[in-house]
């Protein structure tokens, strides 16, 4: 679980610090930096897991426009593996933008005792007073992510596992096809942000986590009466309904946007909202009917609010979501034009419901 996040000199984040809860709901006007916050965390995941270089993660354009400094800093305090990790990444951008950025330093500390640190100058691994050369470490890639978790560096494993379990999802049912990639049925692929590859992800997930997936289908059924199964039918994902003694099947892309969104969201909820995960959810409620929003949010909330449950950071503009979750879990993000992003706990004075206060702008700081 992230206990503290610090971002400096990255787009609208300047000296930005936030201590999120186990369940946090981000609200605020367009352009305040909500999605950017989730994207920055997800980009960091890509860097540490080795999927992206530092140039692909934080390019020259990622610097704060009105800030002349060339150094960008990201810090994460993460509770995992029975202790507290402090991760710090410092990026040096080329002032002229002609050269790729470099990792000025990257460090990971565990319980203020164990520590590894990489520095560009000599690509060294520092453990206390000892310095070891790290052949193969490059100033454009994450050393922490590449570090073997065997032997002396065993403590990095829980952090690496934690960051692998960071998911960013922005469901777009219109992008979801019915095509199952049969070459990849043995192992579930990474679920794309927009869930466009949901049909490819579902069959292997059903095979590996049948109970969770079937619970998801059972949970959707009251909203989609008669739904008994979602299955791979010869390379096409299809939903099977039993109504009035008759069985009928529909290709996944024949379902409505809302029906696809419901099946995908409940699948995500039952499969991914589990201990150790960090779910970054960007407006997941966009396609849901009004009656479907609160039940999904209640289940998500109750999973997050269990000891050891997943951490959830959710963006929503939907009045029902705001009214239901913002009073206890809301964080308001805001910024003035050409100014930095700020964040504070959502607080409504008076008797207005949160969504109404937000719609009037009466939740804005004076």
């Amino acid at each position, binding site marked *: 679980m992230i206990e503290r996040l610090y971002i400096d000199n990255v787009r609208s984040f300047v000296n930005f610090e936030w201590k999120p809860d186990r369940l946090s709901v981000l609200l605020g006007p367009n352009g305040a930096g909500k999605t950017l916050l989730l994207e920055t965390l997800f980009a960091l995941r890509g860097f540490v897991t080795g999927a992206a270089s530092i140039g692909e993660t934080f390019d020259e354009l990622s610097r704060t426009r009105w800030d002349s400094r060339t150094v960008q800093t990201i810090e994460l305090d993460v509770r995992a593996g029975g202790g507290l990790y402090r991760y710090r990444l410092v990026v040096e951008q080329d002032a002229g933008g002609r050269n790729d950025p470099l990792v000025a330093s990257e460090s990971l500390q565990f319980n203020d005792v164990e520590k590894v640190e990489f520095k560009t100058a000599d690509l060294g691994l520092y453990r206390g007073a000892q310095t070891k050369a790290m052949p193969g470490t490059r100033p454009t890639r994450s050393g922490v992510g590449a570090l073997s978790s065997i032997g002396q560096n065993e403590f990095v494993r829980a952090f690496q596992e934690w960051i692998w379990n960071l998911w960013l999802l922005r469901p777009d049912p219109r992008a979801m096809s019915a095509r199952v990639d049969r070459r990849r049925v043995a192992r579930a692929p990474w679920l794309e942000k927009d869930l466009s590859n949901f049909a490819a992800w579902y069959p292997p997930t059903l095979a590996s986590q049948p109970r969770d997936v079937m619970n998801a289908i059972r949970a959707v059924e009251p909203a989609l009466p008669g739904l008994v199964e979602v299955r791979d039918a010869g390379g096409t994902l299809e939903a099977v309904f039993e109504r009035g003694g008759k069985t009928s099947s529909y290709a996944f892309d024949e379902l409505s946007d809302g029906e696809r969104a419901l099946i995908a969201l409940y699948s995500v909820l039952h499969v991914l909202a589990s201990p150790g995960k960090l779910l970054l959810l960007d407006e997941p409620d966009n396609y849901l009917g009004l009656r479907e929003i609160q039940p999904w949010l209640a289940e998500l909330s109750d999973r997050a*609010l*269990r*000891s050891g*449950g997943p951490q959830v950071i959710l963006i929503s503009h939907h009045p029902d979501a705001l009214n239901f979750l913002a009073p206890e879990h809301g964080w308001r993000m805001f910024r003035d034009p050409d100014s930095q992003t700020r964040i504070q706990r959502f*607080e409504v004075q008076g008797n207005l419901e949160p969504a109404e206060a937000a719609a009037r702008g009466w939740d804005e700081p004076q």
Partner: protein
Amino acid sequence: MSRFFTVLCEDIQARVFIYRALLHLGVSARNIRVRPYPDNRFHAAGKRSPRRVDGYEVYACGSQHVRMNFPGELAEVRAQSAKNRDAALLVHIDVDNETANGRTVQDRQRELDDECVNAGVPKRTASDPVACLIPRRAIETWIELLMKGAPVDEHTSYPKLTQREADAEPAAAAFAAHARGKTVPPHAPPSLTTGLSELRRVV
């Protein structure tokens, strides 16, 4: 169960407890609507001074919300029932008594009745599909008993499960089981026994 339940409660802990209990009783999540409750974080954190209501010192935000909205929700459930819609109302309000001689469950029930009178809505009757869950001292008292089984008293302030409110799931499951089985847990304080009777009225 196809009955539709509206839940009017003070805070997230009560929401989790009642919501999970209804699920354990076989109610579909889609047939439960929780009326949004106010922000109680600042009261819990002691950032605001307690208010005096009817001579009692209370953190009134949640209870005030329930009292204010009770007449309207009662009228609504009656209107829906008149249209032959199977609807019920579950109300939660903590007693929040500070002393042994302080407010009682009956006092809280009377406050709800008074709100109805003030709003011109007839008071709740035995035929209304309405259950009033009124824990004394608070919902945490019931959770403590249902989770641990040891005797509790209705004046102690038991710890809140802040940021882990869903850890009360076993208590909700036990509450549902006792409601279904028409039983009462050992050492149940009077308010819990009354609460179980109330729940049985509507499930």
